[in-house]
């Protein structure tokens, strides 16, 4: 549902992207979910709240690890993906779609500094995670 080509990724593996109704969503990348393993719990951000870029907005837990979710851009949370409360596995199954974290409001000309488009992100994970 996120328009291909509209994704921007952060170095901490979150994405922000726009759906067909021109609404912005955020989530974590396919690479991030594969590193994490089976997601068992997601602590979601608060609807209505505004976060600055790189603020901690939530947490994702697997059985034996915790990783934090950071705001990839300055944003206001419109609504959260409450399906993740009961079916956190959506993050593993469809991280760029049904496993999104929240619908958010961002300014249309948001600051893309430090963010990567899809191909740049692919290069980034290929280079930094192949030892």
């Amino acid at each position, binding site marked *: 549902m996120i328009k291909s080509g509209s994704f921007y990724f952060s170095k901490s593996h979150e994405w922000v992207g726009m759906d067909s109704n021109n609404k912005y969503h955020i989530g974590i990348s396919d690479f991030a979910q594969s590193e994490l393993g*089976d997601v*068992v*719990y997601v602590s979601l951000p608060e609807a209505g709240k505004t976060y600055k870029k790189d603020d901690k907005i939530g947490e994702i837990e697997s*059985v034996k690890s915790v990783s934090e979710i950071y705001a990839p851009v300055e944003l206001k949370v419109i609504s959260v993906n409450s399906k993740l409360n009961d079916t*956190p596995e959506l993050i593993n199954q469809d991280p760029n779609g049904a496993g999104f974290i929240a619908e958010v409001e961002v300014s249309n000309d948001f600051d893309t500094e430090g963010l990567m488009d899809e191909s740049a992100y692919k290069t980034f994970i290929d280079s930094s995670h192949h030892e």
Partner: protein
Amino acid sequence: MPKFPGIKGIFLDEDPLMEQGSKGLKGISIPDCGLKKSDLKKDESAYIDAKYIRKSPPELPEVSEPTVVRHFTRLSSWNMCVDTVFYPLGSCTMKYNPKINEKIASLENIKNLHPLTPGSLIQPVLKMVYDFNEILCRLTGLAEFSFAPQAGAAGEFAGLKIIKKYFDLKGENRKTILVPDSSHGTNPASSVLAGFTPVEIKTGKAGTLDAGELEKFVSKDVAGIMITNPNTFGVFEKDIKKIAEIMHKNGSFIYMDGANFNAFLGSARVSDMGIDLIQLNLHKTFSTPHGGGGPGSGALGVVESLREFLPVPYVKKVSGENTAGADKNFNRQVYELAEDKNNTIGKMTPFLCNFAVVIRAYAYLLSLGRENIASVSELAVLNANYVKKKLGKILSDPGPFEEGLCMHECVFNDKAIEENGISTIELAKLLIDYGFHPPTVYFPKNIRGAIMIEPTETESIRTLDNFIKAVKEIRFKTKKSKAVKSPQKTKVGRVNEVLANKHPIFKY
């Protein structure tokens, strides 16, 4: 070569007790206490206001004594334990738990002793705690121990609280505790609990802390360093004295996590390393049983200048009466439970200590005596180095510190078994079917697929060879397809932890 113990035993299935009941059954004998029938029958509302009275009693199982005994006996057969298998869990010191210690801790009057019994009636018990304290002081070179901490982490917390209070009284607001990245998770957690901010230092190339690297972190904000020695790679911190000097020069303290004290029990003193505080895990080094997770005791020792900060109450010698000799009659009041420590951090526990753990540890030391105590660390270190050497040829050592000797435990990475398509967790589970408890795995975190083995001094070469042979078979002969299905001979197979965490079920 002996046979693998394997698992061929009988596993009896068993339902929850809740499902085995029949209305009205119970398994306990209840005295009438001499009460009249009419009193026994009287409703509780004759004694207290009816508004407080519970309308429906808790739904406990309704079962007889034989049902309970069979139930828990069956359950027990699903556990591996030190008495049945080699249990080389790194950093946990799973040594033999002597049976005489259990018998001693079960002495009728000792186990039924109320902690607030007047001091004049419990002199022998107080003397015991006092004498054990003195022995620990001799073994470490420190000035005094407190038995108040109930476990290793509680000892760490008490030690850090002392450091905090020391600086508070000096009017210095130092906030940082330095912690190596290879430390036990309790170290940073205890630091935070005591009001500090833990700052991680990276382990150096040799698997130890580098004094030069440490200097970079030193500032007037540093209250102390927590250092596990030997560290969690089983390697002795060679720079320990230098690290202590750097800390002391900065007015800071050096706290040693004594979880690995078995490595030099009776062979070296921590005072010679410059250590200011240490907790000794009596449930590791001093042979008291782990109990499937507890109880323990994390006796905290400190140098002279910190004695006044120790938790209260403590056992104080109030008269100079000569109390030498084991079988003296205890008539005079020589010891008391005192609270007069000027700068005490306060209480950690409602009474004195985990006494039943302390008494076992004391019995252990008295059994060994001065003739044998130093052999503990010697044999533990020999066994670990034997495993390191033999398994080193089968598994590869964690790159940087192949050379040299380890202390009481050794750590390997998963490189060699990965060649065979087997991961660390699969090695662990495969070992179960050979009849061994798995080693500690995936810790320390900075070793890839870490496998951490601590054999302890109470294992024979025969057992070690047997274990090594099992690892060899896994390394060279085991197929991935078998590995992913292991263990196969246990009560249950690989447990679905994802399900357990996603949809938690906390009770019946």
